[in-house]
């Protein structure tokens, strides 16, 4: 039996998605950060005292599209204020992904957004500041 190599599933898995899935830039834990997990995707934010997002990281047992979306989102929110991050739209990530996302997979793209919204809510509740060591916040 000779293994067949499936093609890129017709534009769904763009080069950006494949690259971000193979080598995500923001995957990994962020110690002492706010963390919000949903559907096995967790986003961690390191927030400066003045409220700016210094760094975002994610971990997750997620599909290629969701992983790429989370990675791009983490890219886009780094260095932004909470309000700027909240103002990001799904279209902003789609523009980077450059893929033909079908309706059945759109939730894979949007999932990191809902996790981020909760994470920012948590960040807001804790006063826009980096919490004291060990005060990791997690929502399930």
């Amino acid at each position, binding site marked *: *039996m*000779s*293994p*067949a*190599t*499936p*093609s*890129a*599933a*017709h534009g*769904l*898995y763009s080069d950006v998605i*494949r690259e971000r*899935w*193979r080598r995500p830039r923001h995957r990994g834990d962020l110690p002492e950060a706010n963390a919000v997990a949903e*559907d*096995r995707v967790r986003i961690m934010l390191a927030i400066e005292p003045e409220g700016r997002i210094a760094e975002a990281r994610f971990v997750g*047992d*997620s*599909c*290629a*599209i*969701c992983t790429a979306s989370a990675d791009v989102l983490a890219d886009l929110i780094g260095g932004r204020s909470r309000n700027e991050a909240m103002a990001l739209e799904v279209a902003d990530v789609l523009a980077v992904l450059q893929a033909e996302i079908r309706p059945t*997979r759109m939730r*894979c793209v949007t999932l990191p957004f809902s996790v981020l919204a909760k994470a920012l809510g948590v960040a807001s509740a804790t006063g826009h500041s980096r919490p004291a060591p060990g005060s990791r916040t997690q929502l399930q």
Partner: protein
Amino acid sequence: MRLDEQTRPDFPILQRIVNGHPLVYFDSGASSQKPRAVLEAMNRYYERSHANVHRSIHTLGEEATELYELARDSVQRFIGAASREEVVFTRGTTDGLGLIAETIGRTLAKGDEIVVTELEHHSNLIPWQLVARDRGAVLNAVPVLRDGTLDLDAFDRLLTRRTRVVAFAHVSNVLGTITPVTEIVRRARAVNALTVVDGAQAAPHLRLDMSSLECDFYVFSAHKMLGPTGIGVLYGRRAVLDSLEPGRGGSEMIKEVWIDHAQWNDLPWRFEPGTPPIAEAVGLSAGIEYLEKLGMDRVAEHERALTRQTLEGLARLPGVTVYGPPLPAERGAVVSFAVDGLHPHDVAALLDGEGIAVRAGHHCAMPLMRRLGVVGTSRATFSVFNSPDEVSLLLATVAGLRSAL
């Protein structure tokens, strides 16, 4: 001639080209494709005989009624029910399980116990959760063992004199496990509990005989067994069905109605309020006739061979995990698997790129996914039109998946 060689010309949809490849349909466990005989029977009904059933005193009304009731006879024969009164038409398995849960639910008291299993599809879990919440009943689940079978010792410990209902799948829609129906029924009956069997994954693939299964209720859908969507069957043992109040009200399920009360109709119509899915009953009947002509033993044998070929082939692939009872245990026409490093959604999307349709996700069985420790699985399910060549293609494609992304 092999079964698929005989049947493939009967399924028009198999001519479809999907993403540049001939369609390979391995998702009959979610919904099967339909042979021309089913499509033509429904079309003929709508073009020649459609009217409402039971109440229309004119030629078309009588023809429609006759066709609808003939479909009931087909089902009775197909499942080996003792009488046609035991065959209630529903909108599908979910509807049938919901109906019977509501109906039995009304007879439950605080502290009564309901037993389900960890294998259940949400359709045979959530209705019982609702009943338990509304009636103050206790809901327990029989655990699944490592090999994908039910822990029957634990089942024995869950059975008490307060156990009123035992509801379980005949064939797991994820693992393919065939549960020991007669044994579970025997033990449930020893504590006077009613038994409700979810037969959605069994009816299309196994020869059914209600007189030997001896369960009180058996529920399945037409659309997974070559028939149309929108209709299903609730089989109920006559003595039990007759003792129950109707679950839902409306026309046809009554004899006499006053403002403050009503007299119920006879079986089976007592449980069929409103205009039923008539064309769908005609389609279901045509699907049953199609399966009967093939012979259910031959159908089961064909699908068993495909299942075995898939299990053996996947087991040889590095980085592929197969779930459910290992060979040589008998299984339904269901194979769930995982590819290391790939999410099930990506597995399904990559296979779809090659024209191969499989299911991916939690398969409406989240408690079972939790038990397996996975977010989901990819699942191939088989029907009469699937061929060994298609399975070989699936195996070759899965073998190349890890380098595809």
